[in-house]
C-alpha cells in the first residue's frame, strides 16, 4: 500500500477517521496490553474479529493464509476470547506472574478500503520477565471498522521481523 497512502481516497477515509483518531486508537490498544486489560482489549474487536501472528520462517507474511500454512497465532473471535481469559488465569503459567511489557507503536500509515481502514504500523514490544528483557519487533496490520461511532478491529496481523524465536522462546504475550 506504500504508494497509495494518504491519496485523495485515503483523505476521504480521513474524514471518516483522521490520523489523530487512528493514532490514538493504536496507542490506546498498546496501553491496554501493557496494563494487562485484556478484557478491554478483546472488546476492541468486532464480532467477526481476528488476531493473527504470521509465521516467521516464510516470506511475505502479510499475504499468507492461516488455513494453508502454520501461523503462530490464528485466532477467530471465539479463540481470541479464550486466549485473553486464559492469560488472566494463574494457571497460564508462562505469564504468571504477568511479564511486564511495553508496546511501542510507530510509522503509522493508513488508507481507506471501502468502509474500512487499513493501517500499517511498526511495533517494538519489550517483555521483561525474571530479570531478562526480550524484544519483539515487526509490523502490525490492522483492519478497522466504525461500529456505533467507535473504531473497532476487524483483524490484526502481527508480522515479526525475527527469523527465529531465539532467544525469545515463546510468544506468550499479545503483540
Amino acid at each position, binding site marked *: 500500500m506504500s504508494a497509495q497512502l494518504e491519496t485523495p481516497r485515503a483523505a476521504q477515509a480521513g474524514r471518516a477517521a483522521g490520523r489523530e483518531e487512528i493514532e490514538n486508537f493504536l496507542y490506546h490498544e498498546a496501553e491496554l496490553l501493557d496494563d494487562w486489560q485484556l478484557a478491554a482489549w478483546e472488546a476492541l474487536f468486532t464480532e467477526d474479529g481476528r488476531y493473527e501472528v504470521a*509465521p516467521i520462517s516464510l516470506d511475505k507474511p502479510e499475504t499468507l493464509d492461516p*488455513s*494453508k500454512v502454520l501461523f503462530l497465532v490464528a485466532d477467530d473471535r471465539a479463540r481470541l476470547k479464550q486466549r485473553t481469559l486464559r492469560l488472566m488465569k494463574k494457571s497460564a503459567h508462562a505469564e504468571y506472574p504477568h511479564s511486564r511489557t511495553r508496546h511501542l507503536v510507530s510509522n503509522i500509515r493508513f488508507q481507506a478500503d471501502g468502509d474500512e481502514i487499513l493501517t500499517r504500523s511498526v511495533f517494538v514490544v519489550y517483555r521483561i520477565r525474571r530479570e531478562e528483557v526480550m524484544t519483539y519487533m515487526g509490523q502490525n496490520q490492522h483492519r478497522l471498522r466504525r461500529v456505533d461511532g467507535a473504531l473497532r478491529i476487524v483483524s490484526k496481523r502481527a508480522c515479526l521481523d525475527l527469523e527465529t524465536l*531465539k532467544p525469545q522462546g*515463546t510468544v506468550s504475550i499479545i503483540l
Partner: protein
Amino acid sequence: MLDKPAAPGREMYSDYVAVDRKALRFRVDRAAYSSQEVFQRERDTIFARCWLYLGHASEVPKAGDFMARNVGGRDLIFTRDRDGKARAMFNACTHRGSTLCREASGSTKVFTCPYHGWVFGLDGKLRDTAAKGGYAPNFNADGLYDLVPVPRLESFRDFFFINFNPDAIPLVDYLAGAGDYLAMIADQSAAGLEVIAGSQSFSCYGNWKLLIENSYDAYHGPSLHASYFEFLDNRMAASNSAATQSGFARGLGNGHGAFEIQLQSGRAVAQWIPPFGEEAKGRIERVNDELIARLGAERAERVGQRQRNMIIFPNLVVNDNLAVSIRSVYPQSPTRMDVRVWAVGPADEDPLLRKIRLDNYLTFIGPAGFATPDDIEAFELCQRGNDHGAPGRWSDLSKGMSEDENLLFAQGDFLDEAQMRSWWTQWDRIIAGADSLSTGRG
C-alpha cells in the same frame, strides 16, 4: 546390543543414573542437566553415534530441491540429485571451509561458493574451481575436493535420518519398536505425508533433556495444562476431559518410548468433534472409512482415533495428538536448548481438514499455543531450581516402576514414567561407551 556388561553388582554404567529395585526408585543426577562434562560427552557419543532426524522427503520433492539444515551442531545440505536420489552433505566448501549454501531452502542446479567460485554438483562433485590454472591436472582425480557426504543417510517411510558414524547399525534396526509408531503416522495417508509450510524455531533456557522428558510426560497434563483442559471442556461443552483419558506408556527399545491415549479432543485424521462443524463431519468420516478399508478396523482405530507422543532416541519428538508435530531439540550449551518444530499432514488433505488440523495444532502446540509456553515455563523452572541451589542430588523418575522392570522396554500406565526410564537407561549406556550402536562394535 551391549558391547560390555555393567560392573559387578551394578545395573547402570555411569554414575548419573541410579536404580534401586527394592525401593522402586529410579533417579537421575541433576548434574546431567547442567554439567559441561556431560554436554561434551553427549556431543562425542550421543550425537556422534545415534541416528538423527534430517528431514522429510516432501521437503525436497524434485531434483535440485535443497534444504540447508543444522543437525547435531553441524551445517548440512539435504538435497535431491539429478537421478532423484536424496543426499546429505556437509554445507562447507572443500577449499577453505566456507559455508556454501546460504539460503534455508530452494531449488538449484549447482552449489557455488561465494568466496572463490568453486562449483559443486547436486551429487557433491567438484565441477569447477573458477581458476584459469595453477592446479595439478589430477588435482581432484581422487575426489578429495568433492563435497563431503554425511557418512550415513537412510529413510523410513519418507522420514530421513543421518548418522555421523559410518559403522552405525542400519536405521531400521535402530528404530526398533519406534518404527511401528512412525508407520502409524505414515499410515494416516495413502498419498503420503507432507511438511506444512511454517516451521518454528526457538531457543530457551533449560537443558535439552528437560524438553525430552516433558514431551511424553502425560502426568503433568492435568496440573500444568489445567487452563488448556478448561478451554477444551468449554469448547466441547463437556466436563473434565483430563479425567476421561486412558492409555499406556512403554519403552520401545534402544531408548525410544511413547505413551498412547484416548482423548476426545478431535483429529483431522480421523476423529470428529462437534466444534469442527457439520461440514467437516462427513469428510472426516470418509477419511476414517478409507483408513478402515486400507488398514483394517483394528489398525485404523489405533491410527485414527488414538493419540500418541513418542521420543525417538535421542532427540526426535513425534507428537501425533491433536495434529502431527515433529520436533528436534539440541543442546546449545548445558543450560540452553535449540528447538525446531514442523507440522505434518496428509499430502492430499482436504482444505477444510487442513484448516482444522492447523487450528487444532495452534490451540495447543507451538510458541504461542495454549500449552507449549507453559511447558517451556516448567522446564525453565526446573533448570532455574537446578542452577540456583535446589537441595538434593537427584531428579526422580520412579512413577510406575516395578521390581522386575525391563528398563529398555518398561511399561506402565500413560501417567507413569516408564518411557523416560527407558530413555535414561539408553542414555546411560551410550555416554558410558557401553553401547556403540555400531555393526563392527567400533
